[in-house]
C-alpha cells in the first residue's frame, strides 16, 4: 500500500543541512562542534525511528515523498530496517566521538583544528547513507552511494599519518573505480528500461525496474546480463565482495573507532542494499549470477576468517572479520530464496549491532589501555571491566553462540543453503562460523583475561560513561534479539516482505517463530 507522506524528508534533510551547521558552528566555537553534531544525530535518529515505526506498524506500507521529482524518496520495509541501523549507529558513533576524538588528538593522531571538519563530515556521512537507502531514482542511488565514499574518505584518513593516508588513498581510489563500474551498470539498466516499447516504465525508478525485471530481461537479455555484472562488480566493491575488497582491511582498521563502526556496521550494508535493489530482481533471469555471488561470498567468508586469525592488530582483525561476515549477507542475497534473503537481512542487522559493539570496544581499548596490539595487551579485565564484558558479548554474538543474535541469523543462512542443496556453500558457512567463534573468543580471552601484561599498559583505565554506554546499548540489543526472536521478526520480516516481489514466484514468507 503506497501512501504519500513527507515523513522520509526530515531523515535526509536534517543530517545533510545539519552537517553544514555543525561545521560552521565548529569553526566559530570549536567545543560546540561535537554537541551540535550529537543533537543533529539525535534528531536524525528520531526521524529514522519515526519512519520505521510507521512502516513496521502497517503491513506492506510504502511511504513516498515527491515521487515525480528526481529527489523523490521512497521508504519500504527494507529501507526502514536500514534507516534504523543508520540512525542508531550514527547517533552512538557521534556520542562516542565526543569522548574518543579529544583522546585521539591528545595521543597525536589528528589535529585539533580539524575537529569541525570531523563532526561535519560524520553527520554528512550519516545523511548520505540515509539518502542512499531512501531514494527510488537509480542515478541518485549511484550519486548517494558515491557520496558515502566521498564523505567518509577524509574521516578514514583523519589521523593523516602514514598509515591513515595510505588507507585513505586506497579507499578512495578503489571505491571510485568500483563505483564507476556501477555507473555503467546503472546507465545500462536505465537505457534498457527507457528503450522498452510502450514506454510506460519510468526508467529512473528502481522500484519500477525491479517490478518489471522479467520483462526487461526477456526484451534485452544481453544488455541486462552486462548491466547486472557491472552492478555486481560496482556495488560489490562497496559491499566488500571478494576479490574487490582490498580497501576494506586498511580503511576499517585505520579509521577512528567511531568511523570504523559506521564503515563496518553500516556502509558495507548500504553496498549490499544497492545490490539487493539493482541485481536481486534479475537473479532469476540472468543465468549464473546467483551461483557466482554465492561462490564469491563463500570465498570471502573463508578468506576473511583466515586472514583474521593471523592478525596482531585488534582493529585489523575486526576488519577482516567484517569481510568474512558480509559474506553471509551476500550469500543470503545470492541464494535469492525467501529463507536466504531473510537470513541475509537478519545478518545485516546482527552484524551491524555486534560489529559496531566490537569496534567501539576496540576504540575503548585504544583509549583506555593505549594500544591495539594483541600480543602486547592482556589481562585488561582488571582495569576495564565494562569493556571486557561487552567485548565478550560482541565476540560471542558474532561467533554465533546460542542465546545471542548471531546464532539465529547464521542458522538461517545454513538452512537456506541446505534447502537449495548447496552443500559446499553450507559447509563454508558453518566452518566460517565455528572459526569466527574460536578466533573472536580467543582474542577476547587474550585481551581481557589472564595476567596483566607489559608495564607500559599498567595504567590502563576504564573509559568514560559516554563510551561504554554506547557499547552497552548494543550489547543489550544483541542479547534481546538472541533471547526473544520476535523482535527480529518485527524488524526483518517487513524488510523481507518488501522485496519478496524481487524473488522468483513460488516463495511464501518466513518468520523465525515457525521456520520450516
Amino acid at each position, binding site marked *: 500500500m503506497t501512501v504519500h507522506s513527507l515523513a522520509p524528508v526530515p531523515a535526509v534533510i536534517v543530517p545533510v543541512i545539519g552537517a553544514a551547521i555543525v561545521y560552521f558552528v565548529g569553526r566559530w566555537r570549536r567545543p560546540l562542534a561535537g554537541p551540535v553534531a550529537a543533537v543533529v544525530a539525535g534528531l536524525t535518529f528520531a526521524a529514522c525511528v519515526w519512519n520505521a515505526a510507521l512502516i513496521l506498524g502497517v503491513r506492506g506500507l510504502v511511504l513516498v515523498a515527491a515521487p515525480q521529482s528526481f529527489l523523490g524518496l521512497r521508504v519500504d520495509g527494507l529501507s526502514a530496517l536500514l534507516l534504523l541501523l543508520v540512525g542508531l549507529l550514527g547517533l552512538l558513533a557521534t556520542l562516542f566521538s565526543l569522548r574518543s576524538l579529544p583522546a585521539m588528538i591528545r595521543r597525536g593522531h589528528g589535529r585539533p583544528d580539524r575537529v569541525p571538519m570531523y563532526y561535519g563530515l560524520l553527520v554528512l556521512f550519516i545523511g548520505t547513507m540515509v539518502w542512499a537507502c531512501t531514494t527510488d531514482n537509480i542515478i541518485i542511488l549511484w550519486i548517494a552511494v558515491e557520496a558515502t565514499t566521498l564523505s567518509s574518505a577524509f574521516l578514514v584518513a583523519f589521523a593523516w599519518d602514514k598509515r591513515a593516508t595510505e*588507507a585513505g588513498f586506497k579507499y578512495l581510489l578503489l571505491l571510485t573505480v568500483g563505483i564507476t563500474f556501477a555507473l555503467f551498470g546503472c546507465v545500462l539498466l536505465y537505457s534498457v528500461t527507457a528503450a522498452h516499447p510502450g514506454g510506460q516504465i519510468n526508467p529512473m525508478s528502481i522500484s519500477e525496474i525491479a517490478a518489471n525485471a522479467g520483462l526487461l530481461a526477456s526484451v534485452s537479455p544481453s544488455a541486462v546480463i552486462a548491466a547486472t555484472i557491472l552492478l555486481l562488480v560496482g556495488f560489490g566493491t562497496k559491499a566488500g565482495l571478494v576479490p574487490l575488497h582490498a580497501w576494506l582491511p586498511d580503511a576499517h582498521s585505520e579509521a577512528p573507532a567511531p568511523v570504523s563502526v559506521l564503515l563496518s556496521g553500516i556502509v558495507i550494508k548500504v553496498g549490499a542494499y544497492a545490490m539487493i535493489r539493482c541485481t536481486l530482481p534479475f537473479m532469476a533471469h540472468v543465468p549464473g549470477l546467483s551461483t557466482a555471488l554465492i561462490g564469491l561470498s563463500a570465498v570471502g567468508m573463508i578468506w576473511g576468517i583466515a586472514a583474521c586469525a593471523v592478525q596482531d592488530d585488534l582493529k585489523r582483525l575486526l576488519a577482516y572479520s567484517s569481510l568474512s561476515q558480509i559474506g553471509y549477507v551476500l550469500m543470503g542475497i545470492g541464494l535469492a530464496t525467501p529463507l536466504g534473503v531473510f537470513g541475509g537481512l537478519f545478518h545485516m542487522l546482527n552484524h551491524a549491532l555486534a560489529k559496531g559493539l566490537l569496534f567501539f570496544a576496540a576504540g575503548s581499548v585504544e583509549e583506555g589501555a593505549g594500544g591495539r596490539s594483541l600480543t602486547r595487551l592482556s589481562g585488561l579485565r582488571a582495569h576495564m571491566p565494562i569493556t571486557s564484558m561487552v567485548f565478550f558479548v560482541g565476540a560471542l554474538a558474532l561467533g554465533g553462540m546460542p542465546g545471542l543474535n548471531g546464532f539465529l541469523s547464521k542458522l538461517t543462512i545454513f538452512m537456506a543453503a541446505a534447502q537449495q542443496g548447496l552443500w559446499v556453500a553450507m559447509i563454508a558457512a558453518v566452518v566460517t562460523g565455528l572459526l569466527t567463534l574460536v578466533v573472536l573468543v580467543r582474542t577476547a580471552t587474550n585481551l581481557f583475561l589472564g595476567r596483566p601484561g607489559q608495564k607500559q599498559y599498567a595504567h590502563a583505565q576504564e573509559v568514560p560513561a559516554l563510551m561504554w554506554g554506547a557499547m552497552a546499548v548494543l550489547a543489550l540489543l544483541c542479547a534481546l534479539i538472541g533471547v526473544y526472536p520476535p523482535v527480529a521478526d518485527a524488524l526483518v520480516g517487513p524488510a523481507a516482505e518488501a522485496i519478496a516481489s524481487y524473488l522468483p514466484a513460488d516463495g511464501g514468507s518466513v518468520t523465525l517463530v515457525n521456520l520450516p
Partner: protein
Amino acid sequence: MEHSVEFVSNLALAMMVTSLAAVELRSLRLAAYAYLAQALLMVSILLAVALATHSEWLLVWAVVALITKAGLISWLLLTYIRRAGVTREAAPYVDFAPSLLVASVLMIGFYKLTHAQALFLSPAAAPIVEPYRTNLAVAFTLFALGLYGIITRRDAIKAVIGLCLLENGVHLSLVSLAPAMPEMPIIGLVTEVFISVWMLLHVISGVQREFGSTDTAELRTLRG
C-alpha cells in the same frame, strides 16, 4: 550523416591517441596535457553528435563536459602536479615499449570488438545506429584504457589520470545509451566526479608528505 560519422570516427581516433599518451607519457605534466587534449576531443565528439542528431541535451552535456573535464579537472591535475613537484613518474610495472604495444592492441581490439558487437549492448535489442555506434565503441575503448592505466601505473597521480579516463569512457557511453536523461542527475554526477578527483589529489599530497613520493609501491605500512 555519413559526413558526421566520418568526422566522429576521426575524432575518435585522435581521442584514443591522446588517451594512450595520457597513460604512457612518463612526464606527469605532459600526461596531464594529453588528458586535457583528450577531454577537448571528447567535447568535440559530443558537439558533433549533438549537431548530427539535433539533440539539445547533448549540447548541454558538451558544455558541462567542457567546464568540468577540460576545465576544472585538468586544472586540478596540473595544479597538484605542480605542487607535488614530481616531474617523472616512477617506472610502471610494464616497460614503455611493451606497454605501448599492449595498450595499442587493447585499444584497437576493443574498438573493433564493440563496434562489431554493439548489438550485445543494445538496450532495445535492435542495431544501434550511427553515430551512436562509433561513440559507444570509443567509450568502451576509453574505459578499457583507463582500467589498464590504473592497474599498471605505479604513480598515484597517474592512477588518478587513469581513473579520469575510465570515467570519461562511462560518461561518453551515456551519450549512446541514455540520450534522454534529465539534466539534474547529470549535474550531480559530474559534481561528484570533480569532488572525488579533488579529494584523491588532496590525499595524494598527504601521502607524498608522509612517504616522500607518490610511488604507490612505497605504500607498505598496511600489509598482511
